[in-house]
């Protein structure tokens, strides 16, 4: 064990607002898959059309980091996912830009396995332990893509979790862990394929989980010098249900009641993110200081980590986390919308959608903090803030020249000044809502709205800002990101944090 206490120092979580009702999936597909009717219970999280693994990771990380402008302490960023939007463009770099992290951080994408989230966390722990970073953050996120009428479509969900790793204000000490690497191919996705190819579930359960997990647990307990009976929380994602997790715990000498909620009823399995999503949920809901938590992820072997909660855990009580996110869902009964958002149907978008979405990368780079970080300008002489930043101030009383310093807008309070719900322009989620957003501390931006509850929007309404996909350039495989305003309805305002949701 390390002399210095290393461990988790904070958490954040994000589950998209929409919750596709499994009944809607089951009923739509009953003609071809009648066996689904029995599975049509509960709901799964469903990313909006403008969300992907990167945007969800940004939301989880923002929950982790809070609204403080100064993020200069973050010196490493590990991003775990198997659904990264870019094969070759540092996805963690996009997240870093959106979070306005400094350029001298180590940013790494960890991919290609369901263990990507836990492996990212292990890398962060190792990096901090080695003294190569002091404040690392880990984000795991997946926007899962499945074929229509597949079992995975029912089981999976979209979501993200974020954790910070460091040596100060540790909320959960890292006691040790291990990885088993075994080329057990329960499923795979070729480099040119959109969908997983899955082998028989019974084999995965009996020959995979049942044989590999207990071995990994044993190795980790030995490494951390912890006895099985001390594990109070056994966090293992699986689509086989919590009873199966209880069996695996028992087989490993851990009390079955330590098995934690796999969130299959209200979220679905969020892929590489799910162990960390479950961990955040467990930290919010179940863990008391002094208790030991085992986090596992199965996939091409198994990762296992053991933590012990400290009395600093309560410092995270204001976080939305996973508990708060799950409390903010909106039921979605339209299965066609799910298929459309996920590109599973060819639909008539109209000629307006033919507009070229090419991105000038030169322009993007020149304006990087503006476009990725929503950074505008503040005049150092008059204090007037504006978006975008410009050489000559917009201040009508004094057009000062070259006086502006960067000013971050993303976490400021803002309201709607004017808006419309536009049925004419192309939108993936018509009507297209947008309008003028005015910030309490100055500045305004005409911007797109998203996650809108139609019929509730009006002038004066509060908004919060989120990083989302602006446009998808299907011709070139690129996607533009920018910030959008989410109108805060009275119902969503009531459950901003996990605490409130409890």
């Amino acid at each position, binding site marked *: 064990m390390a002399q210095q206490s290393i461990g988790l120092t904070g958490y954040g979580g994000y589950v998209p607002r929409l919750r596709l009702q499994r009944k809607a999936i089951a009923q739509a597909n009953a003609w071809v898959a009648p066996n689904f009717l029995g599975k049509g219970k509960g709901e799964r999280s469903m990313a909006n059309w403008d969300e992907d693994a990167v945007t969800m990771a940004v939301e989880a990380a923002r929950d982790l980091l809070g609204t403080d402008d100064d993020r200069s302490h973050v010196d490493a960023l590990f991003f775990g996912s198997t659904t990264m939007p870019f094969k070759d463009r540092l996805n963690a770099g996009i997240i870093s830009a959106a979070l306005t992290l400094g350029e001298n951080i180590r940013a790494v994408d960890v991919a290609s396995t369901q263990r990507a989230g836990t492996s990212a966390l292990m890398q962060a722990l190792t990096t901090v332990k080695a003294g190569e970073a002091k404040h690392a953050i880990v984000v795991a996120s997946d926007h899962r893509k499945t074929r229509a009428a597949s079992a995975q479509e029912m089981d999976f969900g979209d979501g993200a979790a974020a954790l910070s790793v460091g040596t100060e204000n540790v909320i959960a000490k890292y006691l040790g862990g291990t990885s088993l690497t075994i080329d057990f191919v329960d499923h795979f996705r070729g480099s040119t394929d959109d969908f997983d190819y899955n082998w028989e579930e019974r084999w995965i359960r009996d020959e995979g989980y049942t044989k590999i997990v207990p071995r990994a647990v044993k190795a980790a307990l030995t490494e951390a010098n912890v006895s099985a009976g001390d594990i109070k929380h056994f966090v293992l994602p699986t689509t086989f249900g919590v009873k199966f997790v209880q069996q695996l715990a028992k087989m490993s000498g851990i009390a079955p009641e330590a098995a934690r909620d796999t969130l299959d009823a209200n979220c679905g399995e969020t892929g590489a993110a799910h162990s960390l999503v479950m961990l955040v949920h467990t930290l919010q809901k179940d863990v008391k200081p002094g208790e030991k938590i085992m986090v596992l992820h199965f996939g091409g072997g198994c990762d296992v980590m053991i933590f012990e909660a400290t009395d600093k855990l309560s410092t995270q009580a204001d976080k939305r986390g996973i508990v708060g996110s799950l409390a903010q869902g909106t039921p979605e009964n339209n299965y066609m919308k799910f298929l459309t958002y996920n590109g599973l149907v060819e639909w008539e978008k*109209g*000629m*307006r959608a033919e*507009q*070229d*979405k090419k*991105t*000038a990368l*030169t*322009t*993007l780079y020149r*304006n990087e903090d*503006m*476009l990725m970080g929503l950074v505008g300008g503040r005049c150092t002489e008059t204090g*007037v803030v*504006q*978006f*975008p930043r*410009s050489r000559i101030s*917009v*201040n*009508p009383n004094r057009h000062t020249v070259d006086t502006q310093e960067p000013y971050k807008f993303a976490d400021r309070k803002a309201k*709607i*000044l*004017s*808006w*419309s*719900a*536009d*049925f*004419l*322009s*192309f939108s993936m989620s018509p*009507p*297209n809502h*947008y*309008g*003028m957003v*005015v*910030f309490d501390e*100055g*500045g*305004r931006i*005409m*911007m*797109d709205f998203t996650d809108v509850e139609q019929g509730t929007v*009006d*002038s*004066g309404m509060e908004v919060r800002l989120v990083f989302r996909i*602006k*446009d998808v350039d299907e011709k070139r495989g690129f996607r*533009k990101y*920018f*910030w959008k305003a989410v109108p805060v309805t009275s119902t969503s305002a009531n459950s901003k944090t996990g605490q409130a949701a409890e």
Partner: protein
Amino acid sequence: MASGIKDKVAILGMGCSKFGERWDAGPEELMVEAYLEAMQDAGIEPTQIDAAWFSTHIDETGTGKGGTPLSMALRLPNIAVTRVENFCAGGSEALRGAVYAVASGAADIALALGVEKLKDTGYGGLPVGNAGTLIPQWAPSGSAPGNFAQLASAYRAKHNVSKEDLKRAIAHVSVKSHANGALNPKAHLQKAITEEQVMNAPMIAEPLGLFDCCGVSDGAAAAIVTTPEIAKALGKKNIVTVKAMQLSVSNGLESQHNSWDGSYFHTARIAAKKAYLEAGIQNPRDEVSMMEVHDCFSITELVTMEDLFISAEGQAVKDVMNGFYDADGKVPCQIDGGLKCFGHPIGASGLRMAYEMYLQLQGRAGARQLKDPRIGLTHNLGGAPSQNVCSVTIIGAHGA
């Protein structure tokens, strides 16, 4: 202040094509149609034109760039042709260029012509396009109705008007323009409508329904201008002169500074004040005989009544409902049907507005002729409420 343009330039002749879905005509045919009428009205030969200003907005689907489309369509005698573009206010810009050329003495006779061929896109509404490489990376990819509809939400919030009352008032704006357009054989839409039709029409961009939006039309309009002296020498009677031409352009205040509340046009108020000063108008509500304003959407017309200082602030709803701007009201507005019904071929619209004022001042407006108008105002807007160009032009009887 400069001495201004008042009475320095006269309109020698004007022409306007039939507006509408001109499946039969390309930009060249539309230009020729407006030009031949203007030339016949002016009674001059092409060789007498010293210079031309040409307005067109969407070159990708319309005429192409530069001055050549005009020069080639009209077979002009290799004179200077300047293409101007200022969103939907380009037509007024062409007129301003020609008027300034005559006023400066650089030209005796100048031509202004605007054209737009919109109905070659394959879909309804205005063509979509990208504004450079930066704006598409952050600004909403909305539409004109979506941008202008926002006036309604801000106006309601500012003046505490209910959704229903504002919807009914803007409905009346459109009902009035349809009644006027029904008397205009060149108008795109020539059918009267009822308030109920407007209220129940499909939504385009909340709260604007189908009848709150102007026509998307093909068309061209032209003006030939000269000095009052030359006009007289050419035997012209009832000479109409330019009284004021002002243009105000947003500098980013509305879109970037919190002093603008979103319910009015900052530029329109500035352009209107300057235009009244230039024309020597003290009390516009009493002195302006008639107006053609930029009624791209019903809500635009409603707030513009206040921006032009005809209705007092917050009183446009009342004036509209009282029929103040109807054909038989105190200040008839959109007597030719406006953008709403005459139609809105972008680059031509400013000249089309001037065309109606000119016909009315000369007593040649047929079934829709007003009684003895003396001063006509055109208000031609380009862009969106938060970022725009606004032109206010005043023309009237020479000596008025």
